[in-house]
């Protein structure tokens, strides 16, 4: 059973051409480090998100490789700049092979 779920994506519906805007992405994930032990002393297996990939119209604009030091429910924000309307797609992958994605359509209006 996949424990990777509920990706969130926040972008403006419309942006100004050439003007940077903020993209915020988040996914619900326990990010179990693999270093903890349970009440019986057994090691709790590692279970983390390993890759985040952001694409604009199939062009990769950001890739993050995560390690066990990232806290639960990973959250990233970054700046993007567009010249033309585009489809944004964010893919998450964890070390169980589970994958989820979220997408958004961003319109662009010309610079005033």
């Amino acid at each position, binding site marked *: 059973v996949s424990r990777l*779920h*509920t990706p*969130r994506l*926040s972008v403006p519906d419309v942006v100004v051409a050439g003007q940077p805007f903020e993209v*915020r992405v*988040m996914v*619900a994930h*326990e*990010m179990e480090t693999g270093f903890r032990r349970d009440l019986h002393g057994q090691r709790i297996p590692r279970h983390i998100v390993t890759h985040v990939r952001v694409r604009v119209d199939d062009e990769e604009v950001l890739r993050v490789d995560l390690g066990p030091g990232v*806290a*639960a*429910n990973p*959250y990233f924000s970054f700046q993007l700049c567009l010249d033309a309307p585009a489809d944004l797609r964010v893919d998450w992958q964890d070390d169980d092979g589970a994958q989820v994605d979220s997408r958004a359509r961003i319109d662009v209006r010309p610079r005033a």
Partner: protein
Amino acid sequence: VPAPCVAALAVLATIAACMASGEPRSGYDYLGPENRALQDDAFANPGMLWVERGAQAFHAAAGDAPACSACHDAAAMRGVATRYPLVADDGALLNLEGRINRCRVRHQRHPPLPYESDALLALTTWLAAQSRGMRVAVAVDARSAPFHARGRQLYETRLGQLGLACRHCHERNAGRRLRGETISEGMLNGYPAYRQAWQSLGSTHRLFRWCNEAVRAQPWEAGSPEYLALELYVAARGNGLRIEAPAVRR
């Protein structure tokens, strides 16, 4: 009663009166700027992940049973959480989790959701979030008085190897430092809340269990009559506070 005792009692009564006159303060007031910002940001607040899942669960059919939304208008859920825990018509004390599970058993014919399961947390958090910004208004009346008295007794009973009652920290020493932390008044208006210490969302009863373990006491079970009574007492202490669920706490 000897005169010195009377004098001591008078002093104690004065202190108690001073403390009682203070308005309750939310745990938010004891947070650092980073955690406040996280709670205030509807996107970054991790508790919102459970609110979203709760909204889906509220509107989705539960197997062959109708969805919660088949009976309940979502808009009518606003304000519900301000009144819980409350005494139901049959005399049982119910918190939000108890009300959700009662509905689930009676009307959806499903077994109750386990306490602290993601499914129950999600519904509880969504329900609490519908009352965001509204003031806690838990009834302390003739019907709830016995539960309230029991809760108060628990609140004031020394527990565990450290021999501390809830009130020793959260009434007498609120605002003072305990190691690296500032002690809060132990209010529940942000719960279910995302606790950094847990890296997860947790219910009021998980908080009680955590607190009991912190004073090295044997905690009660989540959903137990003891914790329900305690929840009623602690929630009523915070009457007038605005609901912040899902809050972010340390």
